[in-house]
């Protein structure tokens, strides 16, 4: 899929993409649909055969659509097309922008897409930060009464930190502490840490709205354990969480090494749960990045997308 150059630019955008966009830098990625490693307009020939049911795939922080690619070149989108006849639409975006900004951009992109293509049903698939962007877009569409929201039949979140990422919250506290140390090197380190993008900072509390971002505070604990923007009730939501470990306690604490299980399951995970949780799937012995291209994850994804909405 994407070239090494696009992957590098995706990583750069994730790290400092807000700065790139603010300064009008040509390296800033604009949100677009991608086909064969190239951004395509909605009038592009490759989109003319788009069917009535599409899957919109939104990648995560510091990556591009390449994150979906298996070693053999396949990806969830192509596999869903093969197995369910769902037409994949890959989104590329600047993951360094704030999640609310990207949510609004995605909402507008989907509105334009709906106007240009004969789409009846939309499956939203978000990986990691992409899941939060999907949620933010739905929130934006709900407020703006956008037509595309009515076509969404379901959303699947893969390794999405619905309740925030402890790593970012720890980084926030560390950065604040460093800034208070009366030492020029420590202050420099704090300044460098603060250069991380708005997108990264939003991951700490899974901020989906601008007003949530404004309330941010440097603390390890979640600002709001019950997320201020609940999952919309307009369509079903499915969650896929990964864990690097088998042991119950360790996997609860560390999850896939980036997102904890309680966060990936939007608080539904209980380490002593005996029965499966409805709408939630777990995959063991997988790290965060591999969740985007794992055969076991795809089996769950297929099950979630194949059932009656």
């Amino acid at each position, binding site marked *: 899929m994407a070239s090494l150059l696009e992957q590098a630019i995706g990583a750069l955008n994730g790290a400092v993409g807000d700065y790139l966009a603010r300064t009008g830098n*040509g390296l800033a990625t604009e949100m677009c649909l991608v086909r064969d490693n190239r951004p395509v307009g909605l009038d592009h020939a490759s989109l003319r055969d788009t069917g009535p049911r599409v899957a919109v795939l939104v990648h995560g922080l510091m990556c591009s659509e390449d994150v979906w690619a298996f070693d053999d070149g396949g990806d969830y989108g192509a596999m869903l097309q093969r197995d369910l006849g769902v037409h994949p639409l890959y989104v590329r975006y600047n993951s360094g922008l704030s999640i609310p900004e990207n949510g609004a951009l995605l909402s507008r992109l989907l509105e334009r897409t709906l106007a240009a293509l004969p789409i009846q049903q939309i499956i939203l698939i978000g990986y990691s930060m992409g899941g939060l962007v999907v949620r933010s877009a739905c929130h934006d569409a709900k407020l703006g009464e956008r037509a595309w929201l009515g076509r969404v039949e379901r959303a699947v979140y893969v390794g999405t930190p619905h309740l925030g990422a402890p790593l970012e919250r720890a980084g926030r506290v560390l950065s604040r502490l460093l800034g208070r140390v009366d030492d020029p090197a420590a202050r420099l380190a704090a300044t460098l840490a603060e250069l991380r993008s708005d997108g990264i900072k939003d991951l700490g509390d899974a901020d989906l709205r601008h007003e949530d971002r404004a309330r941010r505070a440097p603390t390890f604990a979640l600002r709001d354990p019950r997320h201020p923007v609940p999952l919309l009730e307009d369509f079903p939501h499915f969650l896929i969480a990964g864990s690097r470990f088998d042991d119950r306690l360790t996997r609860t604490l560390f999850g896939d090494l980036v997102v904890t299980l309680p966060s990936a399951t939007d608080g539904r995970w209980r380490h002593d749960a005996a029965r499966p949780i409805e709408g939630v799937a777990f995959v063991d012995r997988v790290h965060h990045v591999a969740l985007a291209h794992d055969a076991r994850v795809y089996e769950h994804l297929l099950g979630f997308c194949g059932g009656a909405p």
Partner: protein
Amino acid sequence: MRGLSRVRGLVALLGDVVEHGSRAVEEVHASTAARGFAVAEWVAPSPRVRAVRAAHDLGVALSYEGVRVVTRAARSTLTLALDVAEIASPPRDAG
């Protein structure tokens, strides 16, 4: 033209990194040196120590500013070259 736009972006980003990075490092350098000179002036207050400090501070400031001036000149030259390349190349479809 997307390729040229990205090259421009890379040039601008590298310029920004040197500009802001050199200022940050200069600040650390000056703060660290100031502590050493403060101790020296406390132990042996003399015009000679103060002169050495003044010479050091001037040298540091000139060195870092020199780096920034050269970077700005290189950035301007590259931007000009990209402008010429853009004018010289035939227009193509976006992408």
